[in-house]
């Protein structure tokens, strides 16, 4: 019996009570990943997330393209939040190449980033709604999202993959009558958000499924290194737009949304409240924006970075999103490391799901604001 096992292999004792479930990748509740869940009856004993189904080697690909050619494929991980994922890249490349950004371009970037944050959160809310069995909450945000997509389409020309932010500013100026149109849509969204509150967030079924499930305490949230809405729902006041303001965020009027509960309900309520803050930022930015001027500093063809390294991060829809770029006097970066919020928030999933009901798994999982394509890069 006592045969020598090869190194790295260990035997696992099988318990008849415990059943292993593979959730995904073909499963409506999993997205582009697999969850290996062990259940005892209806209660989850352990959860082992298995990401990596969409690992496309973005970081390696960035090493054989120059700084401008890198833009399109670096925005693909989160195509519904594409301005925010390009934002730190542009900031980092600007610092690396020593480019000054015109004042008007900085405001346009902030407007694009906040519009995109609204698009992201509305899509996330639609998915969250449909996985909790609330079809109305899929249809409403998915429909309202199209109005913001129209705005960004007018700005950039593309529906979701805008590539609007470039090192040195934005690709082109705002279209005619953009300000009125944008303010009208923002007013409409704020009106609709109040209806969401009545239909979704005050719905007793939603409250019974999310309140008190998957509680993440403040110390655990910090210890596990979560970011974004997960961290803020656990009572930590941390927003990169406030703590390390980039571009013109320090001139704009907004507040950080913090909730203390740390359960699924708080984690799903924080992004909802953040949409109000995004609307405030957009209004303020349109008011303070210079009415005319250049929007882009032209780069030399094939610009070369010095012998330097930079790290820049922004607050995306899912949390801190950073780019670490190492350059060695060549037109291509030597190394690009993308640090994404989704992957950091995935780490706390095994802790949150332990002891939960299996039926509450989608409620906890999607409240983490997780987007698998971004996590796999």
């Amino acid at each position, binding site marked *: 019996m006592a045969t020598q096992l090869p190194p790295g292999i260990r035997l696992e004792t099988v318990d008849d009570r415990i059943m292993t479930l593979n959730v995904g990748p073909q499963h409506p509740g999993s997205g582009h990943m697999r969850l290996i869940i062990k259940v005892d009856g209806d209660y989850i004993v352990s959860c082992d997330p298995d990401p990596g189904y*969409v690992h496309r080697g973005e970081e390696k690909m960035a090493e054989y393209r120059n700084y401008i050619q890198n833009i399109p494929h670096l925005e693909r991980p989160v195509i519904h939040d594409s301005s925010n994922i390009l934002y730190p890249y542009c900031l980092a490349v600007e610092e690396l190449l020593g480019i000054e950004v015109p004042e008007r371009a900085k405001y346009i970037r902030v407007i694009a980033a906040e519009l995109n944050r609204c698009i992201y959160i509305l899509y996330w809310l639609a*998915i969250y709604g449909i996985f909790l069995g609330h079809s109305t909450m899929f*249809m409403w945000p998915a429909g309202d999202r199209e109005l913001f997509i129209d705005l960004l389409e007018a700005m950039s020309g593309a529906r979701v993959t805008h590539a609007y932010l470039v090192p040195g500013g934005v690709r082109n100026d705002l279209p005619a009558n953009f300000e009125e149109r944008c303010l009208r849509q923002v007013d409409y969204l704020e009106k609709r958000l109040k209806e969401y509150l009545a239909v979704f967030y005050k719905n007793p079924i939603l409250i019974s499924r999310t309140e008190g499930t998957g509680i993440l305490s403040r110390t655990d949230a910090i210890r596990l290194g979560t970011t974004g809405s997960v961290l803020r729902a656990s009572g930590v006041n941390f927003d990169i737009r406030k703590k390390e303001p980039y571009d013109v965020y320090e001139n704009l009027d907004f507040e950080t949304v913090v909730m203390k509960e740390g359960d699924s309900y708080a984690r799903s309520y924080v992004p909802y409240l953040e949409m109000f803050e995004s609307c405030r930022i957009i209004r303020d930015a349109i008011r303070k924006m210079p009415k005319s001027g250049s929007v882009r500093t032209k780069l030399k063809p094939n610009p070369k970075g010095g012998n330097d390294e930079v790290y820049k991060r922004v607050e995306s829809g899912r949390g801190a999103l950073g780019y670490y770029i190492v350059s060695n006097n060549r037109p291509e970066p030597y190394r690009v490391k993308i640090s994404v919020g989704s992957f950091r928030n995935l780490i706390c999933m095994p802790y949150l799901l332990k002891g939960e009901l299996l039926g509450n798994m989608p409620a906890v999982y999607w409240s983490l604001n997780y987007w698998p394509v971004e996590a796999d890069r």
Partner: protein
Amino acid sequence: MLKEFFNQETAPHATNVLVGKLGDILVRAVGKPLDYAINWGRIWSLWPVHLETACCSVEFGAASSPRYDVERFGIIEAFGSLRQCDLIVVMGTITRKMAPRLRMVYDQMPDPKYVIAMGACAITGGLYFDSYNVLPGIDGVLPVDIYVPGCPPRPETLIQGCMLLQEKIKRMKGA
């Protein structure tokens, strides 16, 4: 002789052969109207598998949103079992880790089944043609019926692809 014909031990599939022959005779006799009726039933109840493979799934979600509403063409974004599905929309990049799973999902679907390759990545590898972990197109894994180009395709393009698939099914042999 008839007794021998129905003897399961000597001719194990004789009953099946007989049923199949009857079906052939029926098809030959009724011919085109039967094909038409069967295909008519198929095109208005295409159920896609819910298998998200990459970022194109955002646009697939948008296609079933109120503005585009792909359901009015008979494509239902269902969350059911894949044993009931007859359409697989490959939403974007297939990595080396996903490819065996994709084939496994396809093999579990009942016949007849149709494949739509959505997005440049599913067609040729697209933007990721030189990545070490991405397949250069899915036609080595699945037999593709309709290619929907774009990166990502707009929901209108996806709807057009679905309608082209329905046109294609109309011309297929039904039984």
